[in-house]
């Protein structure tokens, strides 16, 4: 498993915890917060992608 895959796995585990465990109550406060959470997750992925590309 290379570095990119290790980072992807770490990100995947964190995302699963946030999406599939009771922690998800945190981003269910308002009608727009699920979208905000979703967008921030995409932003993190994009940043990691950029870092992988730079590496």
């Amino acid at each position, binding site marked *: 498993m*290379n570095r990119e*895959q290790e980072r*992807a796995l770490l990100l*995947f585990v964190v*995302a699963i915890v946030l999406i599939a465990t009771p922690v998800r109550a945190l981003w269910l406060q308002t009608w727009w917060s699920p979208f905000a959470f*979703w*967008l921030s997750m995409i932003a993190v992925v994009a940043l990691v*992608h950029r870092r992988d590309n730079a590496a």
Partner: protein
Amino acid sequence: MQLNHFVLFFLAAALLGLYIAGSEIVERSSRWGRLGRNRFSYALALGVYATTWTLFGSVGFAAAEGYDFLAVYFGVTLSCIAIPILWAPVAELVDRYRLGSIADLFAFRYQSRVLGAAVSIFMVAGLLPYIALQLRAVAGGAAILVGEQPTEELGSVYAILLSAFAAVLGVRYADGRAHRPGLIAILAFESVFKLFALLVVGTAALFAVFGGFQGLSAHLEQHPELIENMTSPVMGESWIALVFVTMCAAFLLPRQFFVAFVQRPGPRSLKTARWALPLYLFAINLPVPILLWAGSELATPGMSPDVYVLVAVQSSALLQVLAFLGAVSAASAMILVSSIALSGMVAHYLVPPLLLPSPQSLLTRWAVFRRSTIIAVILAGLLIHFTLPRTRSLVDLGLASFLAVTHLLPGLIGTLFWRRATREGVLWGLIVGAASWAVLTATPLFGIQVDVSGLYALFGFMDPAARGPTIWLSFTAHAFVFVGVSLLTTRSTEERNAAEACREPRVTRLLQVPDSAEALLERLTSYVGKRTAIDEIYGAAAAADVYWPPRDRPELLRLITELEGRLSERIGPLAARTYVQGGRPMRTDALAERLRAFRELDSLGAEQRPSPAHAARRYLSLLMSELPVGVCTVDDHEDVVVWNAQLERMSGLEEDDICGNPLCEIPSPWWPLFDELAHQPSGSAIEREYDLGDRKIELRAQTAIIPGEPEEGRVFVVEDITALRQLERHVAHKDRLSSIGTLASGVAHEVGNPLTGILMVAKNLASDPGAEDAHERLGIIVDEAKRIHGIVQSLLAFSRRDETPVELQAIPVARVVKAAVELAKLEMEGCRIDLDLSADRPAMATPDGLTQVLVNLLNNARQACPRGATVYVRTRLDNGTVRVEVDDEGPGIPEELRERVFEPFFTTKPDGQGTGLGLSLSRQIVERFGGSLTHEPRSPRGSRFTVTLKAYEN
């Protein structure tokens, strides 16, 4: 503006016509063609995931289950995060083995057409409801717009329109070429169009119904239950199951697999899709809650929330048409790609066994089959559309398909991560999964209810209507059977090889290829006929930029790789491999391939090979490479596995040109050397001298058998002893010269006796020249002088360092032996000679030299024999050599003296009967012929001297 069916149909047809025209432009124009190869276009094309379910169904889903509808897209986002772990290895396999579908991948990994067929059947059954969903959504939307109830006739009209579009483009893109920019471009464009439509409609609804965001906020403050209805279902049990199912569907749905892997323009595309696809899905889902709340405000009682998108903008016919066209666009793209993807599976795995008489038919008529199957798939979707009860929501139909593809996950895990997985495990898991899917998910769609509440209760699920239990029960049963059966069954060799190839796809192409271009043509001809074979090979040669016939092996390999890939795209990987490789089992376990793989791994950056296993492999690889002796190993198929650096230097042949090829293809003198050794027992050694044109080389080679299953082979260790032998000869020459001096006293003794006799007789004769016996005395002098002359000649011959090459010729051994016996017979008084020359074959020697050797051996035998004894002379043929054995019945040579028998001046004869140079000279002569002279005791007594010469090879 009053909308009617004619206007809607015309607009829908115009939009689809635009797509067809656009695809033509992109295909024909290099400038526009770039659009189809762009990584952002690719990411947008993956937006084919968003169908009418997203356009219409999401609002209905949100109305029933709140933000649970987002699970369908959160799953995709999770899947995209895992692209380097899950998608990238699959993409690599698809690229490397030119796979066209998930059925191809399973058939390849598990080496089973049956499994490919099972996956195809399951996918067709699972996806048809989804195709029906698209047709139904479009027909329902049109009915709403014209203010009618949806009817079968109305559904049929739009179904036929969409089917015709899919059939026209599907046939266009079913020609087997891997990447088609036109297809990617129109998929990207339709993704942009449906996004635009939904955003515009959502914004319009926001301002038309709520007067903007402030109005919406006020509305939600007045109705807090709306937010509660949206958020609370997310904490329920369906959420996780939906996320899981859609995570699988994101890349296992046949249309997603087709776009993501088969149509991938390049490696970077997948990385871009990692964030671009979730971002696209995010954008297209933003308006969904707004449309839900706006639609709720305007909808009449009893209206399905699935059409709230149209209701929310009911004040504007233009916006309604825009939303409708967005749905038409999404439905048409989904049907197009799904039908292409499914038709590939059907054409590879279902049609041939049922309809085609021969493999030739498959290849020559593949285009007809692909096009027929596309139309058949669309017609089947139509049939489901008419059959399904109208009470089912769009989400129910879509989820049924999603759940079906979830059952591909265990097999995929086996492909990527679990080598122990077997085809039986996957097949039985799939059967159980399909059965549970049929009972728990599919039959309820048709209004058939099976009471499974008891089963649910057994596992602690209280609500049989909930989505979670159905998904978990079905998947758990599948996974359990998959793992259990895999552990209980064993993998075939082919399966094990394919599993290995799937684990390290980047370093294994693993072709067992025909040896020549002619063999390739012959092999393909045997399957598909000469005309088709020539067409296919010429097509592949043009694509691979190879002129027929290929000039060398690398060109042949390039051609074969291209040919197999082209065939694989059309007839599946298994059939293609059989056509090109003649059905021989793929030897991915070939040691040469493994070692090549290791070398490629070693060449990767240090960051990528941190494991101890890699370090050990690298160490062994370096050790083998740097050994100061040449090492060549072959496997049980006599293919070269190792050709180390020292052997490269000795032979001038590079490892890459030798490894993986049959031993017999190595140029001379290496092949004859190894071939000779290969027939020797383990531990044998031989020494040979070869003329390489510009130089001579002397080699000492040893062999040993490598034990073990299933890779038994041989190792050859080769040492260049040219310099060593030259040094030995030089030293031996010096030794011989010095030995002349050292042994001068011995020689003086030999010469002194006859010389004394000569002097005495000469003196007597001088004092009495007229004596009666003067003549007799002169004879004595001559005889003694001859004896001295003989001794001197022998000494000269022994000390002469004659390196002039001997011109060997094929001589009739039996005839030379007879001549030697005739010569020796003169001195054979008292002995019998027993000749057995039945084994007669020409050998490489010179007649004079061989005669000299044989006369010497016969004289020795005669002198050793008592009177009346027999000297046996026999010829024998043995493994490419001719042997002449001379046996005597003398007392034999004592054991302690046997080692010295070929030493110069060593003799067991009485004084005056031998100089001790005969045998050493004979051995020298025979060795110059490339043969050998050996001695062994003869049973029960006596000695045997054997002259071994190379037989003449015609």
